């Protein structure tokens, strides 16, 4: 790059910055949008069920039954409601007033005393499968605790001879927010990055200023660089704001180093901006561009990135498809740098993938832009 080219680039950059400064909409997309969305979603998105409304049906009250149901009343997971008959409880479940039913039949006591294995009916609403599984887990916990307490009172050995010592690494309290906020940051930055660039190039075309630029001596590379640099800086600013919100407001631990986070964010930002540039130089019709932007950015970053849905559990063909989603690599990096630290065996391969994606998007955007300018 010679002096003349540098001078032209500086001129273009000055123009871009002035435009950004005078039209606050890109500043809003870069800073306001991520901040507002992260604030809203950080509070709104949670997989921790608590105060689950639960129907308790005790058909023949007794001390044993009371000791069992008492365990539910003390549990923070449940908000138990008493019903006299199983029919009433079923009706409440049909009307979505309770998520589950725990039913002690009338022969509960008799069978518990004579021989044991007295069945306790547990019905959960299986529509929301994940919630149903979590509720099942909670009920099992309550039951196991009750069994141990009963055995201790009677002075018998524990009824379950194995003592499981669960140990959840990186997130001992199993708070879903610590897991979801890093993924949210990746999703929001995908959106903001693609929107920033998808809109600006289209705007030049629309106003006819792209043609005006073309008749000057400015090269395609300089135009693209002049678009990329300011929005890259804006995007990194938005990223920094998001990380600050995550760490200070939502108190997600940041165990990795700041420079690893910055370096990988820069790679991701290049890929996201490259995708935006590609979309805006590819689609001639804005209706199509809008559809592509949604198909290519928001929904994949939401569903295919590993942000909520575990990629390992998807069918292999879908797992293959997730490899073209840039957010996938960034989610993996962010979840590790926030919760586990600088795990190079996770960061390096994913960073390499981001470099490849950024190169492909930017290269393709450049190739397409050249064709259209000629």
């Amino acid at each position: 790059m010679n002096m003349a080219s540098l001078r032209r680039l500086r001129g273009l950059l000055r123009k871009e910055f002035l435009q950004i400064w005078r039209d606050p909409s890109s500043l809003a997309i870069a800073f306001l949008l991520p901040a507002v969305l992260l604030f809203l979603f950080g509070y709104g998105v949670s997989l921790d069920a608590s105060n689950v409304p639960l129907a308790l049906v005790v058909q023949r009250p007794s001390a044993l039954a009371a000791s069992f149901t008492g365990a539910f009343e003390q549990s923070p997971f449940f908000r138990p409601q008493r019903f006299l008959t199983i029919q009433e409880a079923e009706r409440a479940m049909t009307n979505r007033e309770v998520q589950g039913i725990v039913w002690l039949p009338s022969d509960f006591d008799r069978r518990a005393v004579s021989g044991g294995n007295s069945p306790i009916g547990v019905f959960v609403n299986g529509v929301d499968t994940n919630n149903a599984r979590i509720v099942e887990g909670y009920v099992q916990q309550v039951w196991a605790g009750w069994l141990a307490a009963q055995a201790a009172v009677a002075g018998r050995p524990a009824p379950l001879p194995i003592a499981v010592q669960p140990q959840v690494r990186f997130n001992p309290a199993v708070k879903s927010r610590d897991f979801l906020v890093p993924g949210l940051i990746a999703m929001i930055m995908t959106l903001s990055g693609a929107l920033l660039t998808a809109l600006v190039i289209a705007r030049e075309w629309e106003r006819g200023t792209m043609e005006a630029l073309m008749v000057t001596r400015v090269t395609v590379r300089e135009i693209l660089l002049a678009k990329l640099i300011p929005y890259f800086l804006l995007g990194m600013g938005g990223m920094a704001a998001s990380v600050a919100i995550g760490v200070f407001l939502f108190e997600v631990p940041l165990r990795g180093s700041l420079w690893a986070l910055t370096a990988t964010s820069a790679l991701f930002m290049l890929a996201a901006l490259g995708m935006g540039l590609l979309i805006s130089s590819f689609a001639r019709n804005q209706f199509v561009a809008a559809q592509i932007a949604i198909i290519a950015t928001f929904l994949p970053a939401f569903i295919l990135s590993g942000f909520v849905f575990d990629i390992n559990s998807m069918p292999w063909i879908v797992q293959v498809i997730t490899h073209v989603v840039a957010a996938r690599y960034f989610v993996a990096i962010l979840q590790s740098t926030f919760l586990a630290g600088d795990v190079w065996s996770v960061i390096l391969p994913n960073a390499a993938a981001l470099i490849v994606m950024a190169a492909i998007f930017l290269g393709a955007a450049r190739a397409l832009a050249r064709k259209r300018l000629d």
Partner: protein
Amino acid sequence: MWRQVLALIVKELLAVLRDAKSRSVLIAPPLIQLMVFGYAATYDLDHVPMAIYDEDSSQASRDLVAHFLGAPTFRLVAMLHSGQPIDALIDSREVALALVIDRRFTRDLLTGQPAPVQAIVDGRNSNTALLIEGYANTILSDFSTAWAVAHGGLRPPAVLDIRARYNPTLSSHWFFVPSIVALLTQIVTLLVVALSVARERETGTFDQLLVTPLRPIDILLGKGLPGVLIGLIEASVIIVAAVWWFEVPLRGGLLPLYLGLLIFVIAVTGMGLMISALAATQQQALLGVFLFMVPSIILSGFATPIANMPDWVQDLTLVNPMRYFLVIVRGVFLEGASLSSLASQYWPMAAIGAASLVAAAWLFRSRVT
């Protein structure tokens, strides 16, 4: 008057459907998304990679290992001979669960002490961690009770008999595929409606429309009804695919489903028209679509339950039509819900639809004059 509105509707439909690119964007992407997301959106765990370190290496511990190997949920990646590699395996995400059977395992089992088994889980995905813990606990307690009975222990006084209603195998697909009807219908309808007025504004034909004898309310109808129509057709295609391809049971009637769908599509159209009336260019409209759509999907109960949100966010979701339609579509598909049990979902959506249409009409009028 109605003939003119009809003509406008036909013109709108032609504008969207005549262009090959726009047309293909309406048909292919939603179907592809349905296929990919229908399979991708799952909380089920399958073949979770695990490592086992059996310090005890006895008959009992090998029995326990066999219990894990026999479960389809887990896939053994490494049989360890020391505890050392566990940290690295978990860090690099090669395994999500490491099971350590303590040296004292058999001795404690035989002497009636609680026999220690350590389950180390990767907590980076907290939801998966909880589910893995749950599965591992189930296997361990199955083994426990079997062992206790075989060795003359006491049977526990009571056991749980857990059943899931409406979705006995707790298949995630049954939960998510009907929800995708709501997701994709909302996106397509919003885009068709929100960009239509802005497109006319940009090409200058909106002014031509204004000098015709059509009243603003007629223009509103002409712009809104094509969106409703396209939304209904789109949803029907996805419903058919959900039933025939994904084999999700459709237990309720078509009437409660389509009544909900109609109100939902009208409410979304109202939102789209509001965005359309506010936006001067297609870019602004696109931005408006994003700003409405992203929160409305994330805070709809699609992936994370509304009941888990703090109260002020739950209050915000009350103006989100998708929140109600998700309950309807899941209710009709899985619970076989009736019109009366869904009434509490219909009327808020209808109110949102009415309010947004009135607001859009008012915005149109104030923009026109």
